[in-house]
């Protein structure tokens, strides 16, 4: 009997598609069970998950550590918000314009950045993100400065939390599928080769810089998409979305979930946002606990939750099974 159960679990555990579709179905029926406040929280998690996955394409898959992803995220958010506020163009067009604008900015920033490696690359992305922050902050007449851009129109359909949740869920899933295809395409494999050994990849005839630039642009596009979604979700955008502290949030989300795992940032985002919500309710020193979590993460769970499970816990189960036999 026991063996049959074990066999059953072993089988189902390996059914990746089964679990993923269960997750998606659950996500779709979630609003039936839980209060809309949590649906709104999950919407936030989904958006940050998308941003994390986009950053992961650059950081985890191509090995380019960026300290300034929030800059591009904010470009997406501001493009959508400003178009909605100042022009009458259709909603769908503004949602497309956000990522495209972020992609364009990403192309310019990336063109400079990929010429540098390691710490210089990271610092250059940081400086560019801060410049983007400065532009949003200083251009009062256009962006509203630190008061942000607020009060832009939203389609009737997205006014309720549940319907905007479905909208966000749909877009995030589509984006994740696109990212998945990119990561598993020959292009994605080349990126991973660059991460493992840029010199060798160059020798086999790959133009490393160009591929890195493409990865930067694609990552920017999806960061912009996340920004646009957040603008619509929250109904207001602020320069702080481009600040380096927001960037560190995104990096922590990637790390927490697991950088070398496609869905790592999804888990990271869920756990990170849920934890900060949970702790902030109990203590005014919640940043202390957040800091401790971050330090613990770096010291003991460098591959994130996903990595931790597959490296530390999964072998334990395996071992148990073997000793049982």
């Amino acid at each position, binding site marked *: 009997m026991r063996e049959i159960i074990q066999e059953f679990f072993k089988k189902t555990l390996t059914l990746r598609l089964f679990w993923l579709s269960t997750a998606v179905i659950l996500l779709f029926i979630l609003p039936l069970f839980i209060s809309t406040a949590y649906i709104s929280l999950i919407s936030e998690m989904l958006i940050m998950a998308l941003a994390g996955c986009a950053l992961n394409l650059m*950081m985890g898959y191509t090995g380019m*550590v960026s*300290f300034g992803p929030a800059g591009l995220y904010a470009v997406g958010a501001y493009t959508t918000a400003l178009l909605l506020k100042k022009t009458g163009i259709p909603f769908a067009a503004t949602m497309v314009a956000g990522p495209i604008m972020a992609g364009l900015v990403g192309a310019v920033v990336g063109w*400079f950045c990929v*010429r*540098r490696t*390691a*710490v*210089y690359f*990271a*610092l*250059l992305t*940081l*400086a*560019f993100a*801060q*410049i983007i922050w*400065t532009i949003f*902050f*200083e251009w009062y007449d256009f962006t509203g400065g630190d008061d942000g851009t607020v009060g832009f129109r939203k389609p009737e359909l997205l006014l309720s939390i549940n319907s905007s949740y479905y909208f966000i869920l749909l877009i995030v899933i589509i984006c994740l599928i696109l990212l998945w295809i990119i990561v598993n395409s020959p292009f994605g494999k080349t990126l991973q080769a660059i991460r493992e050994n840029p010199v060798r990849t160059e020798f086999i005839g790959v133009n490393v810089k160009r591929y890195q630039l493409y990865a930067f642009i694609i990552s920017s596009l999806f960061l912009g998409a996340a920004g646009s979604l957040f603008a619509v979700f929250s109904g207001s955008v602020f320069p702080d979305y481009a600040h*380096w*502290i927001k960037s*560190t949030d995104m*990096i*922590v989300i990637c*790390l927490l979930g697991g950088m070398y795992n496609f869905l790592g940032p999804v888990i990271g985002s869920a756990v990170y946002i849920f934890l900060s919500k949970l702790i902030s309710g109990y203590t005014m*020193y919640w*940043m*202390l606990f*957040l*800091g*401790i*979590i*971050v*330090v613990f*993460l*770096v*010291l003991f769970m*460098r591959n994130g939750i996903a990595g931790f499970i597959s490296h530390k816990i999964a072998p334990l189960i395996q071992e148990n099974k073997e000793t049982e036999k």
Partner: protein
Amino acid sequence: MDIEAIMGQVLSGLSVGMVLFLIASGLSVIFGTLKILNLAHGTIYMIGGFLCYWITSTFAHIPAIFWLALILGPIATALLGGLIEIFLLRRIYAEEMLYQYILTFGLILILGELCKLIWGVGYHTVSVPWPVDGKMSIFGMIYPVYNIFLICCGVAVFIGLMAVMRFTGLGRIIRAVTFNREMANALGINVPMVYTGVFMLGCWLAGLAGTLMPPMSVVALGTDMAVIIDCFIIVVIGGMGSLSGAFIGAIILGLVNAFGISLLPKLTIAFGFLLMIIILIIRHWGLLGKPE
């Protein structure tokens, strides 16, 4: 602008620059040897400020307490730095820079909250100590002695550090470890101890800057975030890990700010970042760094 106004801005630019150099020198020393971008450096600086306030207010009856605080404060931050290095940083030298960045970000949160827990949320000030509390006249301008004192401190720290690095056995060991860690290890140098020592030196410098600042500024939460990015900019301009570069970088940033506020006030916030971007694009090893 007349000549007096220009001299005024030059002097204040130097003053601002030297204060920033005092903070950034520690960051530069740490990056030079440990190759770590220590985001928590600003927080160590802030702790130095809180220590200065705490010592001077608790033992206010002791004469010349500020000067005692100036000795004790940096030592305390250096010890704190030693603990951080031994228990946290040491474990992740082999890892990517990203982990160090995030670890030190976590430290910002932890140390900042601990400051709040210990010293509360208010603003604190420290009086300017005797004998540097007067005013003096330079180029026909009234100028506070304390600012001149800070400029001198900056220069003294710079010369002192350069002398230690150049002429002492300790400096040779540090340079050897910086140059080639494995080789130094093979030669029998205790590399982990040198790392701890250098990190403590960096934190001592941050603590020194933190203790020197309260008499002309304010002790409050959040001052760490205000300085850390400026320090990064200085270290990048001068060349990562180059002490003399940081010195020049600090002066440049100070002067650019001093003149920028009157010539292009709208862009003041962006100046530092623009400088950083230009340097990283055309000469990423910095003004005085060495190309790899």
